[in-house]
C-alpha cells in the first residue's frame, strides 16, 4: 500500500497569540511552531498500518509551507516515515484552504496513493476544509474525524468509526480515500534518538509551483476566494463575581444570581 500523510506546521497550543499593531496579522516573535497535534495521529496511523502489513508498503509525508515545514517533515521522518516532500513556493503564500488543496491535489494525484491521512483540522485556522477539498479534487471519498480505522487490505476497504454528535458513525469506504484523524485514534510515538539521527541525513524532496503544472493565478492569495482582513482580540469578560459565605449560602446565592441577574435558568 502507498500511504500518504499531509502535515501542517502550527503555533504550539501554549503560545500566547499576539496581534501586530494594525491587527492585520499575528506577531511571529517568540512563537513556538510544532507539527499540528492532530497530524501526529495521522503519521502514527500510517506507520502502524505499514508495520502491520510488512509487505513493502511505504509512508510518504507532505507539507505545504515555508521553511518551518522542514522541521515538521524531519519529525515525521524521525518517527519512521519513509519519504518526505516539502511543497514550497512564494506563489503559494496567502492561499486559503481551497487554493492550498489545489496544490496538494496536483502534487499527490500522479503518485496514486491508496490512503491519505491527515489531522481533522489545523489548530491555527480550525477550518477542517482542506482535507475534504483535497478529496473532492482527487475524486475520492473522504471520512472525517476518525477514532478507529480497520483496514481490509485484500478487499481494499476501510471500516472507520467517525465521531459525530451523540455517538460514532461506522462507515465502510472503498480505497483510495482521504481519512482525517481525531484524538483517540492512537497514541503517537515519540521519535527515537536513532530515528532523529537518521532523519537528519534523509533527503527531503522539494516541490515548487513549476512542478505542479498549475497556473500562478490558481494558487496562493491569487487563487483564493477568501481572505482574512483583520484579527480581533476576544472581548473581555467582566470580572468574576466570587461568592462568599458558608457553602449553603453560596449555593443559594448562585441559584438566585443565575435566575435573577444572569437570567439563564
Amino acid at each position, binding site marked *: 500500500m502507498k500511504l500518504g500523510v499531509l502535515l501542517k506546521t502550527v503555533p504550539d497550543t501554549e503560545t500566547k497569540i499576539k496581534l501586530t499593531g494594525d491587527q492585520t496579522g499575528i506577531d511571529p516573535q517568540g512563537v513556538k511552531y510544532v507539527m499540528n497535534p492532530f497530524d501526529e495521529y495521522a503519521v502514527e496511523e500510517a506507520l502502524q498500518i505499514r508495520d502491520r502489513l510488512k509487505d513493502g508498503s511505504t509512508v510518504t509525508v507532505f507539507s505545504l509551507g515555508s521553511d518551518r515545514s522542514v522541521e515538521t517533515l524531519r519529525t515525521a521522518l524521525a518517527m519512521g516515515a519513509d519519504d518526505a516532500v516539502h511543497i514550497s513556493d512564494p506563489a503559494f503564500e496567502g492561499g486559503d484552504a481551497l487554493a492550498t488543496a489545489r496544490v496538494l491535489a496536483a502534487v499527490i494525484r500522479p503518485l496514486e496513493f491508496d490512503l491519505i491521512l491527515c489531522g481533522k483540522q489545523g489548530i491555527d485556522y480550525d477550518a477542517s476544509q482542506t482535507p475534504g477539498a483535497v478529496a473532492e479534487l482527487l475524486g475520492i471519498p*473522504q471520512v472525517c474525524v476518525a477514532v478507529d480505522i480497520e483496514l481490509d487490505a485484500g478487499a481494499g476497504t476501510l471500516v472507520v468509526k467517525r465521531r459525530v454528535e*451523540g455517538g460514532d458513525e461506522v462507515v465502510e469506504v472503498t480505497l483510495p480515500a482521504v481519512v482525517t484523524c481525531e484524538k483517540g485514534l492512537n497514541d503517537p510515538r515519540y521519535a527515537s534518538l536513532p530515528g532523529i539521527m537518521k532523519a537528519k541525513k534523509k533527503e527531503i524532496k522539494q516541490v515548487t509551483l513549476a512542478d505542479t503544472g498549475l497556473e500562478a493565478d490558481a494558487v496562493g492569495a491569487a487563487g483564493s476566494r477568501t*481572505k482574512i482582513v483583520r484579527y*480581533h482580540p476576544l472581548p473581555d469578560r467582566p470580572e*468574576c463575581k466570587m461568592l462568599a459565605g458558608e457553602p449553603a449560602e453560596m449555593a443559594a446565592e448562585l441559584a*438566585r444570581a*443565575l435566575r435573577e441577574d444572569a437570567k439563564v435558568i
Partner: protein
Amino acid sequence: MSKDILVFVEMRDDKIKKVTYELIAAARHLAEKTDGAIHIALLGDAIDSHADTLKEYATGSCYAVQNPALARYSTQGYASGLEAVISKSGAGVVLFGATSMGKDLSARVAAKTDAALFTDCTEMDIDGEVLTVKRPVYSGKVYAECVTVGDGLHMVSVRPNIYPPAGPVDGGSAEVVAVDLPVDAAAIKAMVKEIVSVSGARKDVTEAEIIVAGGRALKNADNFKLLEELADVLGGSVGASRAAVDAGFAPHSIQVGQTGKVVNPKLYFAIGISGAIQHLVGMRTSKVIVAVNKDANAPIFQKSDYGIVGDLFEILPLMTQEFKKLLA
C-alpha cells in the same frame, strides 16, 4: 451574485436538528440586506412531513431531494443532491451548521463549486457581492474577520447556539419542489453501516444549553453521578475535561476542549476544572460560566462570571438542592 440564501437542513434519526432553525434566523438576517428569498435544501428518504413543516419557514422554495440512498448521511450522496439544489435554486449564499455533518459536507461542496467557504462562524454580514464573517481561530484565542473575494458562491458553516432559532414565516407557505438525486446509490463509496449511540438520554454537549462539566478532581467515574444529578435538575448535559477523560472517569464523547468538543451553551459549570487554555478553547464563548474549585488561584476564575472557592463534594450537592428548590 444571486441575492437568495439557501439553508441546508440537518437531520439525524429522522428529526430536524435545532441548528437548522438557527440557520434560518441567520438567513433572514442576510436576506434583509440582499432583499433576496430564503430557500431550504432538504435531503433524505422519509422527508414528506419534514417538507411540510419546513415550507412554512422559507420565502422562496423548499427543495426536497428524496431518495433511499440518502436515508443516512454520505458525503458523496449529499454533496451530489445539494449541488443539484444549489443549481436549481440559483442561491448565492449557502448556510450549514458547523456540525460534523455540516463541516464534512460544506468542505466537499465548496470544492466542487469553487465557492468561498468559512467554517464555524459566529457573526456574518453581507454588502453587495461581499460576505464578511467573524470566526474564532488559533484555538479560539482571537477572532478572524474574513471576506469573500470575487464572483461566485459563498458558503458559511455557522456555530450552533449563536442565532436564536427562527419561527415560521408570517403569512403563506412556500412551495415544495422535488429534485432528483443525480448520483447513483451504487456509486457511493463511503456508506454509514451503523450508528453507535453514546450520549443516551441527555443531549450531546455540542447541542446542550446547559453543561455541568467535571475535572480530575472528581476522583473517579462514580463521582460523575454528582454532576449528573445537577445536570438532570437543570435539564442539561454532562461534560468532562481532558484530564478526567484521560484518567478514565468519562468517555471522550463528552470531553470539552481543544482535543474534545467545542460547546456554546448559555450556562457552563466548570467543576474542579483548573482552566487550562486547552479546556477554555472548548467553552469560552459560553454565555455564563460558573467555576467551583478548591484552589482560589485556579486560572478558571479569570474566565468565569461566578466563582465559588470550596470543596466540590460539599458544594455540588448543595447546588443541586438549591436549584431543585428554585425550579420546583
